[in-house]
């Protein structure tokens, strides 16, 4: 672990401070996305047991729209 961190810091030491922050921000936002997703992995499914009418109507029209495409 410490060896990995050392190699990362060696990699980053040649980058200017703001570029290194940009790289870290990109990596941190990626990990944040994973964390957010894991915490909500099973949430947001319940509505599928609810009212399908609007969804079916929407899908029908969507298919019609797709059928009009070349």
């Amino acid at each position, binding site marked *: 672990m410490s060896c990995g961190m050392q190699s990362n810091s060696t990699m980053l030491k040649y980058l200017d401070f703001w570029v290194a922050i940009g790289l870290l921000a990109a990596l941190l*936002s990626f990990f944040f996305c994973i964390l957010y997703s894991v915490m909500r992995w099973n949430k947001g499914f319940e509505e599928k047991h609810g009212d399908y009418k609007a969804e079916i109507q929407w899908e029908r029209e969507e298919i019609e*729209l797709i059928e009009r495409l070349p």
Partner: protein
Amino acid sequence: MVYLIVFVSIYLLITIYLSYLGYRRTVTVSDYLLAGRQVHPLVMAMGYVSTAISTSAIIGFGGISGVYGLSLLWLTFLNIFVGVWVAYVLFGKRTRKMGKALDAHTFPELLGRRYESRFIQGFSGLVILFFMPMYASAVLIAVSRFVEVYLKIPFASALLGFSLISACYVLWGGLKGIFYTSVFQGAIMIVVMIILGISTYVLAGGPTEAHRSLSMLTPAVPEALREMGHRGFASMPAFGSPIWWYVVTTMIMGVGIGVLGQPQLSVRFMTVKSDQEIHRSIPFAAFFYLSITGLAFLVGALTNVIFHNHFGRLALDVAGGNIDKIIPLYVDHFYPPWFVALFLVTLMAAAISTNSAQFHSLGTALSRDFFEQALMRGRSVAETTIVTRIGIVFGIFATLILGLVLPEGIVAIATAFFFGLCGATFIPSYLFGLYWRKATKAAARASMLSGFASSLTWMLFFHEQESKAIGLCKALAGRDTLAPLPWKMIDPQVIALPLAFAVFVLVALMTEPVSEETVRKAFKHI
């Protein structure tokens, strides 16, 4: 050449099969619907990202990174945080629910129905119709530059040839299977970009040596660039310098924020079945952005190390000043023939997946949004099918002509132009429409018109990059731009987007919200 024929044939066969699969699925709609389709989160993320990331990101922005260095990594941060988390969580979930509740099928239709305004839908459709070809041409130019380098043929021939392939694909059924093919295309892009990224670091001597070599190249940066604020490929440009304003406001913020107002991406959320799919696809989308754009920008900057080690010259010099040729020349020079052919297929996949979504949006913008709503006052007529085709053919021709007349090194600039324009025009009305029950029709109209007009005005008279190229300012005022430094380097979106937000809030506070029934319907599932 043999590799190219083999890879292209395999690619086309799989794409045709997937298009057929997509078509078959759409004709068996009843079973499909009632079974309660659940799209795998990996599939949803890959479809979304392959539409969002195109050859423009790899060739255009990779080339920009080859000139301005690793400061572009901030764009990867915005790609992930704004382009995935904000887009999926803050915009996507409500777009899905509101789109279904209002029975909206296109992005302009969502805005039009939310604000009870045919004008908004028609106007949005026209903005897409007239300006999206600029972005579509950037996508085509990027792949054509690679073909030019790889096959050693004139750029115009490469552009015409690839436009023909793209047109055949779009006009002969490609759009029906768009969802399935874009997943396949996304998968190719990710695998090849990971190979390219790892091999580039290996060629440059490993991560530490690569970064060390990159930082050592600072003295080699041309004097002209240094005077404008370039401080080396491993550094941000000098704060407040012309290059800093250009890289930060146009290349990073223009695209990083403007992505939220992209019609062909927003519409994808409406096809999702539940919030759960959105939650689960977020990490995949973030990974794809990280691996495709992150690696493209790292590779772009590192091409300087590799070109310098082999030829003693920087990437821009090797490319003869054409930013869009940096990545094609790098791949063509340093990779085995099979990989070069595979990379070309990757670019084809990236271009076709994005072009398909663009031409789809162009067709429906003309037929459903402008023709049916603005002209026919909401009446659905049989002619809509032919109008859709006219929209697509118009889009293809406009894209081709722009591709032939636009100058060299234009890919990232044209992309940033379209993202910025859409951002300033659509984002305030879109965001307030999703969140503010008291948002008004007048506010949305005023915000869209002011965002659009101020963006265009800034481009024509103040932002030197466009005003110089267009020449209207020179013709009327005798100089390239009316603005001094740093204003002439500041991207139009930085001016137009806050203005459009302010106009929206001010007008909304003074006017009546849309009818209670529409608000109730729009927020029914929220």
